[in-house]
């Protein structure tokens, strides 16, 4: 089982990598002038056919934001567009990757006979799984953002690669410190919240790029902004994802965590490095929500704060696990 899990992990990374290549291909070779409508029209129909009767609120993808005014060209575009096809293939491969990802987690859980959340490797595996699943979920409701798939796949591949290279730990049972039902509650909510913050980071970064592009910046990262959805839609998606993840994170890291810490170590909060950085992330994300709710703060400034928030989450995952020893050290890489 453990072997199988490792093989499935490789399949997962390869699938995301393939999806990334397909997204990139769509990005580069998709019929250039058609890109906006080609990206959105066929995908919409696709979803409309399969989706439940519930009307899809289109607020995120106002058609006129994405579709060029030139309607005459738009009519014939959706028929044949290799780019859009590639994009759909990419989404399909991502879904396959997600299945393999689920398989990796399940087989690992079976091999260890517990929830697969016992060390840093398994934690990253779970966070990226949530990220990937949330991404596909959001995509199924808002097909217009498919172009972001390139960046989602990039983040997934990088994180999973890091998990495999830096943090791999052989399968084993939990140390007694983790024998607690809080293990399931605390770790699962933190994984969920981190996964959603991860997905929220992508539209945040893309919004900043698009925003810069719209303001006429044409140097490297901003050139990517040419083909992503409208800035306002990205910004709203960013906020929604963060507004959803923030209470989850509050519960997982700042309520369930301290409850467990009280039972385990006798104090609910002790400024362990992991706790310090969870606190920092919480404060930074709180900053983002405040900044976004304040009209006098520019949306781009607020979004920068969200990006900073994700950087603190990464710092907590990699920096704290690898450089600072603390009570959360069963998350340590390399299996001490």
């Amino acid at each position, binding site marked *: 089982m453990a072997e199988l899990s490792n093989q499935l992990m490789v399949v997962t990374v390869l699938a995301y990598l393939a999806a990334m290549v397909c997204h990139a291909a769509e990005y580069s070779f998709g019929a250039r002038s058609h890109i906006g409508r080609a990206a959105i029209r066929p995908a919409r129909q696709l979803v409309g056919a399969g989706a439940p009767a519930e*009307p899809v*609120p289109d*607020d*995120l993808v106002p058609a006129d934001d994405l579709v060029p005014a030139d309607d005459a060209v738009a009519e014939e575009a959706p028929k044949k567009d290799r780019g859009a096809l590639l994009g759909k293939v990419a989404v399909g491969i991502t879904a396959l990757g997600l299945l393999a990802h689920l398989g990796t987690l399940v087989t690992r859980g079976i091999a260890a006979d517990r929830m697969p959340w016992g060390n840093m490797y398994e934690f990253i595996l779970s966070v990226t799984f949530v990220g990937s699943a949330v991404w596909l979920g959001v995509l199924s409701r808002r097909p217009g953002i498919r172009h972001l798939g390139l960046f989602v796949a990039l983040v997934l591949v990088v994180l999973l690669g890091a998990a495999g290279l830096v943090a791999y730990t052989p399968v*084993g*049972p939990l*140390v*007694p*410190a983790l*024998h*607690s039902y*809080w293990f399931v509650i605390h770790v699962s909510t933190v994984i969920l919240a981190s996964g959603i913050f991860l997905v929220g980071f992508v539209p945040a970064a893309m919004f900043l790029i698009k925003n810069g592009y719209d303001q006429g910046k044409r140097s490297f990262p901003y050139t990517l902004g040419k083909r992503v959805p409208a800035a306002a839609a990205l910004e*709203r998606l960013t906020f929604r994802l963060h*507004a959803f993840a*923030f*209470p989850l994170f*509050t*519960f997982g890291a*700042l*309520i369930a965590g*301290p*409850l*467990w810490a*009280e*039972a*385990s*170590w*006798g*104090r*609910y*909060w*002790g*400024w*362990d*490095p992991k706790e*310090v*950085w969870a*606190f*920092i992330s919480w*404060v*930074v994300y*709180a*900053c983002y*929500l*405040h*900044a976004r*709710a*304040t*009209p*006098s*703060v520019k949306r781009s400034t607020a979004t920068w704060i969200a990006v900073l928030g994700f950087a*603190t989450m990464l710092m907590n995952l990699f920096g*704290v696990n690898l450089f*600072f020893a*603390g009570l959360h050290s069963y998350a340590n890489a390399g299996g*001490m």
Partner: protein
Amino acid sequence: MTTVEERPAPPAAPPPRRANPVWALLRNSWRQLTSMRTALVLLFLLAVAAIPGSVLPQRPVNPEKVTTYYLEHPKLAPWLDRIGGFDVFASVWFASIYLLLFTSLVGCVLPRLLDHYRALRTVPPEAPRRLERLPQHVPAAERAEQPAVLAATVAKTLRRRRFRTVLREGEAGAWTIAAEKGYLKETGNLLFHFALLTVLVGVGFGSWYGWHGNRLLVQGDDTGFCNSVTQYDESKLGPRVDPSDLPNFCLKLTEFAATYQDTGVPKSFEATVAVTQDGGAAVTRQFTVNDPLRLHHASVHLLGQGYAPVLRYTDRYGQTQTNVFPFLPRDGMLTSEGVAMFPDANVDPKTNKRDEKLQVGFEGVYLPTVSADNSATSSYPAERAPGLFLNAYRGDLGLDSGIPGSVYVLDQGQIANGQLKQVSGDRPHELKPGEAWTLDDGTKLEFLGTRPFITISIRYDPTAELVLAGAVLGLVGLMLSLSGRRRRVWFRVAPLAVGDAGHGGSVVEAGGLPRTDYPGFPEEFAQLVKAARDEGTS
């Protein structure tokens, strides 16, 4: 601090009277402090100020690491200490940031509480004259019912959907219905911020009235522990706690069971203790990691474990002394280091005089499992092939100097100045349980076996529940505030034609205004209008 909603316009400029400059300064500083910009800056500062707390070793978290840091950075460390670098979260500057932040919070939230209280008591305002100027609008449509009847039905529909609804009769038989919903958003927001205050107050009182102590507890009747400050290895009482306030209980470790996987990673620990509370009868209780022993006003947490060799020393007068010496684990396989000191050895029974030059001490490591290749570390944490490796020292142990020293290492100063001399060979002498070792002067050390010991942390925090309640309320408020949406709708029902009011029939027009960012409002508004229409006809 979160949502900025439309507020009543600030009162008109005060009459041009020269303001008291001090008062003006105070007022302006207060306004500056309670502004959103300041709050954001303070939040950021708080995040940045927390970083050193994870980079530098912290005294309350790990005092040994602070000592190591002092040794590694002898110049820098005292400076860092002066600015609170080793206790960031109790430092003046960290406290000043969060106190300013909370002041700003109170200054911002209190007026909003008043506003919200007023908003909850005021009825939704009269419809604007021109509904078509609102973000959502349904143009006038003709209906068969009487205006009064129709208006009542619409109002009923809105009330059923938990809108706060007012029905107003206007001129010439016209009615308006004003409705508002989503007050919970601001309620939740205020709740969140007041819950944060509760958490702060709870944490503050907890550190004043709480206490904690750490203790190493060896298994056995002769090594019990009673809850008093002097019996702790290390303890910290809150400023409002007197040593006599500590609850009265005693613990004896009767059994400690640990199981391990083949790799040496621990599987389970279980400590069994005999507890006596307030002089009552002893009760057997068990506890483990994650499942502390809850006593009245104290909880006992299992933090660690190890082995304590039992050693018997027979001195040159034939007197024997037996004692238990906990050896502290150095790694996960429980390679343990420690010392055994016999300061009262070689006391001449005739004169009863102690010769300080003849005190005896042993220093070394205990390996629960000595590996086949004779490496210096244990290869398994359970006692599969135990071995005790000791060096013997004779001379003045330095215990009478009055300077408190560690009981886990010999006084290196005494060894350096030659007062304490090593009297065994270059390599440590190995002892299996039951073996004896005769030293150069004919005295004898016997290794009788080991007893397990546990390290426990005993704590009391009177306000933990309050902090938890605050955190949970805060979460509820947060969710309300993030998911809630404030919106207003208006319906205007006018008689169809002014001349034939008696004939019935009306004209209905509707408008809607989302008061917070709410992308789904058009759909809700459309459904609302549809529902009002359907119920009217049925």
